[in-house]
């Protein structure tokens, strides 16, 4: 099994009929994702046309359901991608959890942290995997040359092909940047953990998933200022990981007390600095690149040292 989802698994999109939802549903379809429905109580019973959106160029016609429960019952959906606006996001995720969706990828930026704390804890109790919020999503690369991977969210398709690397990141564009730098090597899966203070899948949990995935041979971890997810992941990796991890950390120049775009990207009370993260990572043997390119170069060296390439 690829990371958190099988190739070809049926997927629904919550908030599909909004602008973001429409744009990215079309993209995900083109990338070969098996999207079987959307939800919107006001448009239930309708069918949305996505002209030419299927990978073979044919039109996709996606039914809209009133609720996640109905969508799951009718389609057997295993996963959901959430584009619902912040003020409705908590209810949307709770609905998906209650409906028995197994993997929920929350793209929405701007969800109050109390709401995220609630649905993340609920998901943990029910054994449901949440990725995000405030993340670019999860992309897996097909396990065989014939199969499409699954693209859940907004990660651009076509940057990379299948290879031995796993990638986990707090940032969207830095994910694409590193995917681009290492496109010649290829990936098993790229996971956007998200830039919020509380997320459903932490860097550490992503490392654990890559460690357990037989096809992943090494992991690129991209962190940024704020919190201690990088340090937590590094300490865990030092004790439990057999596969090499290389890291990049953004935000050495960030001043104290200023939120740098992402809700979670803030140094407060001298805690969560990039320097502290770098030192903690290096202390357990995880090499950290000064720039994305240098991190990619280190990864090449590490792959060579481990005889992976």
């Amino acid at each position, binding site marked *: 099994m690829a990371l958190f989802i099988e190739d070809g698994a049926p997927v629904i999109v919550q908030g599909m009929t909004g602008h973001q939802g429409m*744009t*990215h549903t079309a993209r995900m379809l083109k990338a070969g994702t098996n999207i079987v429905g959307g939800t919107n109580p006001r448009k239930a019973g309708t069918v949305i046309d996505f002209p030419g959106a299927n990978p073979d160029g044919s039109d996709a016609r996606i039914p809209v359901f009133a609720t996640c429960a109905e969508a799951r019952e009718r389609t057997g959906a295993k996963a959901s991608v959430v584009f619902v606006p*912040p*003020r409705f996001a908590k209810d949307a995720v709770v609905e998906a959890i209650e409906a028995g969706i197994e993997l929920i990828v929350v793209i929405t930026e701007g*969800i*109050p*942290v*109390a709401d995220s*704390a*609630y649905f*993340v*804890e*609920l998901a*943990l*109790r029910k054994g449901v995997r949440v990725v995000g919020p405030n993340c*670019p999503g999860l992309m897996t690369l097909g396990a065989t040359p014939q199969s499409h991977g699954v693209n859940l969210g*907004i*990660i*651009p398709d076509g*940057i990379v092909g299948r290879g031995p690397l796993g990638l986990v*990141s*707090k*940032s*969207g*564009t*830095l994910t*694409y*940047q590193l995917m*681009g730098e290492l496109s010649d090597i290829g990936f098993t899966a790229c996971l956007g953990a998200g*830039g919020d*203070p*509380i997320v459903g899948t932490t860097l550490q949990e992503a490392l654990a998933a890559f460690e357990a995935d037989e096809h992943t041979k090494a992991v690129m971890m991209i962190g*940024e200022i*704020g*919190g*201690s*997810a990088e340090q*937590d992941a590094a300490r865990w990796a030092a004790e439990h990981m057999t596969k090499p991890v290389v890291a*990049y950390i*953004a*935000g*050495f*120049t*960030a*001043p104290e*007390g*200023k*939120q*740098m*775009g*992402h*809700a*979670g*990207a803030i140094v407060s*009370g*001298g805690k969560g600095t*990039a320097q502290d993260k770098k030192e903690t990572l290096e202390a357990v043997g995880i090499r950290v690149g*000064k*720039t994305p*390119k240098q991190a990619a170069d280190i990864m090449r060296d590490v792959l060579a040292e481990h005889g992976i390439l």
Partner: protein
Amino acid sequence: MDLYEYQARELLEEHDIPTPKAIFAQNSHEVAEAADQLGYPCVIKAQVKIGHRGQAGGVKLAHNRDEAILLAESILPMTIHGHKVNGVLVAEAKNIIHEYYVSISVDRSSRDFDVLATANGGTEVEEIAKEHPESVKRLHIDALGDFDLEAATKMADSIGFYHADGAQAAQILLKMWQCFKDSDATLVEINPLAKIGDPDDESSKSLCALDAKISLDGNAAFRHDGWQRFADSIEADPYELKAQEHGLHYVHLHGEVGVIGNGAGLVMSSLDAVSGAGKEQRTGIKPANFLDIGGGASAAVMSDSLGIVLSDPQVRSVFVNVYGGITSCEQVARGILEALDKLGSGKPIVVRFDGNAAAEGLSILAQADNPNLHVAKTMEEAAQQAARLAADAKENH
């Protein structure tokens, strides 16, 4: 979003947590009036969103009106650890018998909420944790659960509140939790939560929140009327305000290279690359700002962004770094040219495009044939070039 002490105090008061009588004042006349009303001695406290203000001389005791005026005149114009003082809080002076520390915050690692408390209050909690780690007690509040009187009482007992204070302490902890939830806070900290009163008169003793720090969740502003009551016109930077009007994430950093990119991580990375280049080139050139145009930005958004960055007179060059995912480099290129047409700026701009429509974007820039537009292949090269151009411009100025 951090609050000033006087604003935090307001929120505590609204939740029925005892605080000393206090009045916010913004000039020496108001300070004198406030001090007269509260009586002497009283405390005059600088309002800044940064710790250690006492050590910096921002908190003083006034014994009479003249002294209050003198202190106001010395504190009001201060800048403490880089933060301009925004008024003072004039507060009743209390006789302190003991200082506790209590806080509730979001715990990012355990993905729930944390109550922290210690009987060794008064100084910053990081210092307390270093010096007396055993004295700091921690309790997690489940994200699906609640914090009740039983838990609050247990917490109060465990940190060693004096027996007589236990019941009041538990009530205060509960009210703090209510305040935390009602306000969508990420931090409610009372330090010190002081035992005050006459040491010889047991009936006069009680707990009182002498100082407080509250941070609110900016993402929850829609539930609170946009936090308009806490709008901060004094500290706000004019460029940050302008960017906010356009819905852009901007942070003013006061260096020489304006930085614009798509995605918070990539922009932070670009800032690091510029600082690194400035160090390597031994020019001390630094980034002037953080500006994230977000995902799927239009030409208009790019043009507005460049307008804001170029309006900063300290900016000598601009580094535009876009890795097009949803964002189209073509739109960004059009936005750059639109802004240059409008502003006629002569400052050099170094552009690095990759991803979605990068080739189209670069060809649009090439056709414009503008000598101030430079194109670099990688973000590292672009940062180097932008830093060099900024240093040259600074020298020739």
